[in-house]
């Protein structure tokens, strides 16, 4: 059964969770009224990106009223929302939550926290420690966050774990304005298309827009089919919602025509990676 996904390419207010929560509830409500099946928000959509020392202030516990309100709204329509989660041991993680049927169905914690150049994430956040696909009412999904997809092992694990749809949420800053686009946009366009084709899955990518302290987020959210076709693409820079219809039958056809996942030699991959790790850590 095809389903409709709406990409909410928004610009959150930095550090103002109540204001962002209102915006989410409004957009989730509208998506439901419009008969949309899944609405996807960007990374850290409930708090903004450069939270720095606000990290603990904007962090939400799993049982918080804010996540409860999102869950209650996500009934009939499913939602992927970005936030900072405070874990029981008080670690703070960059989180992507998948909500459906009035509950929080799955949480992914960002595994790769960039801490170089303009990024400072490991100063404030703890790394996620697992990548898992999960079943949803719409089909099997894998959630990844921004820097995670700069490591091809992350989408590879999600695909081999059964994901037919990779949902990637991001706060990607624009750098290098060249020939109608940004260097960062070009890099993402290539990676996401490559993953869709190599792993035979849909890629749903939602990047934020707006400015924080002069840093500009480029948007360009998109859905890519398992054949590498861009089914919908939001414009650069604008706050906007775009939609696409996903038919998971497409995944079946792509994987039968080009059985790359089935042909993967996992034993060889694991054996060689294990050897490489052991050789690196041998005293």
């Amino acid at each position: 059964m095809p389903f409709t996904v709406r990409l909410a390419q928004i610009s959150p207010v930095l550090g103002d969770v109540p204001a962002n929560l209102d915006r989410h509830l409004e957009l989730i409500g509208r998506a439901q009224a419009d008969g949309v099946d899944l609405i996807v928000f960007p990374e850290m959509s409930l708090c903004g990106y450069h939270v720095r020392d606000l990290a603990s202030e904007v962090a939400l516990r799993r049982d918080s009223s804010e996540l409860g309100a999102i869950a209650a709204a996500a009934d009939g329509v499913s939602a992927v929302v970005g936030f900072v989660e405070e874990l029981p041991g008080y670690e703070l993680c960059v989180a992507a939550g998948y909500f459906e049927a009035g509950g929080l169905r799955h949480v992914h914690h960002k595994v790769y926290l960039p801490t170089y150049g303009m990024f400072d994430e490991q100063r404030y956040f703890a790394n996620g420690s697992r990548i898992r696909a999960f079943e949803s009412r719409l089909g099997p999904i894998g959630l990844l966050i921004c820097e995670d997809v700069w490591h091809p092992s992350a989408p590879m694990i999600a695909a081999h774990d059964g994901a037919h749809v990779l949902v990637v949420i991001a706060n990607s800053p624009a750098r290098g304005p060249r020939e109608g686009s940004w260097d960062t946009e070009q890099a993402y366009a290539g990676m996401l298309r490559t993953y869709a084709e190599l792993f035979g899955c849909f890629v749903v990518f939602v990047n934020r827009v707006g400015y924080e302290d002069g840093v500009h987020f480029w948007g360009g959210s998109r859905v890519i089919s398992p054949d590498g076709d861009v089914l919908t693409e939001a414009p650069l820079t604008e706050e906007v919602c775009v939609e696409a219809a996903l038919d998971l039958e497409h995944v079946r056809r792509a994987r039968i025509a080009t059985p790359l996942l089935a042909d993967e030699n996992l034993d060889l991959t694991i054996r060689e990676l294990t050897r490489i790790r052991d050789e690196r850590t041998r005293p």
Partner: protein
Amino acid sequence: MSGLDLDCALVERTLTGFVREELGKFGFTRAVIGLSGGIDSTVSVFVATRALGAGNVTGLIMPYRTSNPESRADAELAAAELGIETLVVDISPMLDAYFEQFPDASKERRGNKMARERMTILYDHSMALQAMVVGTSNKTEILLGYTTLWGDMASAVNPIARHLGVPTRVVGKAPSADLWTGQTDEGELGFTYDDADRVLYELIDRRRDCESIIADGLDPDFVHRIYRMIRDSQYKRRMPLIAKLSHRSVDRDFRYSRDWGR
């Protein structure tokens, strides 16, 4: 395509969005900009006007009695082209009154004082007009430290780019701080901005070191001089130092974005 070439249309869209959003977050719809008639302030005022509309931008022209009259004419030309309001504030009375007490002051002291006098006038009009001060510094002069601390560097937001349909007589003329008669930036620095940009691009944007650039055939003395200028002006690019005494010091372990809550 060289790394110094940019997609101008995309840059313009990004900078106008930057001015509109960063002012808007703080409740401002208006901007005030010091106009010198030079390329930087002309580009800034073009960006601000495209972002906010001509009715929301005020250009302050602040000549000293020895300033080149062409500077004022070029500032007024740009303002007329954009249809923005301008205000002329002659800084000669304040400068002259001050330096009557220090008649032997060097031309550099006088130049710095002019830049800081203009800063206080801009910030006074920021309040009077409920307008944010939009800056006019470019990346090259910021990196070289060829600026007056708390003077022409002072602003609330700083967009800059070349292009934008700036009048050609402004684009074509020699960059000058116009702090004394006949001054040109390149004359005072002893090198051209194009030559400096080539070194800065390799050192800063491409993260290369001096030795590898010199191996490309650039003049070793020039490369080392640029490197020293960057190093020796680092203090201008930071907030004032605060001695660490308490457990939490502003900007060291008290870290918040300026757009906090916005």
